[in-house]
């Protein structure tokens, strides 16, 4: 199972990073979201995997490590706040700069015309 989970985390990271390397704000946001999934899973796995061990006292014998879970919760919330900000910033950038390229300008002037919604 660990191998599978590690593969998933690695793959999610790679996908997230690839998307974050795109030149438009929307894929960057997607990539960021995906990267946070990967990171959250990563933090979570740093407490090792446990089946049937929710850290609620009295429900099982062997509890999963609760601390990484708490850290992930914090990370999720912070990640949400950050993503939200980035999303709105992207809108603002589109409004202010007239395009959705992360550098605020299109790499090629001709593209401006081609790019229709």
């Amino acid at each position, binding site marked *: 199972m660990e191998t599978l989970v590690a593969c998933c985390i690695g793959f999610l990271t790679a996908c997230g990073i690839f998307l974050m390397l795109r030149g438009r704000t929307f894929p960057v946001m997607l990539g960021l979201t995906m990267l946070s999934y990967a990171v959250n899973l990563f933090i979570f796995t740093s407490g090792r995997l446990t*089946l*049937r061990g*929710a850290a*609620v006292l009295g*429900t*099982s014998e062997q509890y999963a490590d609760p601390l990484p879970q708490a850290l992930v919760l914090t990370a999720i919330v912070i990640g949400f706040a950050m993503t939200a900000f980035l999303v709105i910033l992207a809108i603002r950038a589109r409004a202010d700069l007239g395009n959705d390229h992360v550098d605020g300008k299109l790499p090629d002037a001709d593209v401006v015309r081609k790019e229709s919604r």
Partner: protein
Amino acid sequence: MLDKVIMLVFAMISVALLLNLWRLLRGPSLPDRILALDTMYINSIALIILYGLLMGSPLYFEAALLIAMLGFVSTVAVCKFLLRGDIIE
């Protein structure tokens, strides 16, 4: 016996989820994909309930309830998006 039944149902749900994914990937239209996603949400409720059964723990009920609620909201939101563009107007 119950264990075997649960595993069987697990298998059914898994197949159902894969079918949903297939429709989601296949499309062809956006409403098709949204429908597939909505179904997937509901099917995962089943999956989680089954997990609860498997582990004999009622701790997962809220997750199921939340999926039901949030799945609905997100489906509605996507539909609204396709209809009006602006989902909060």
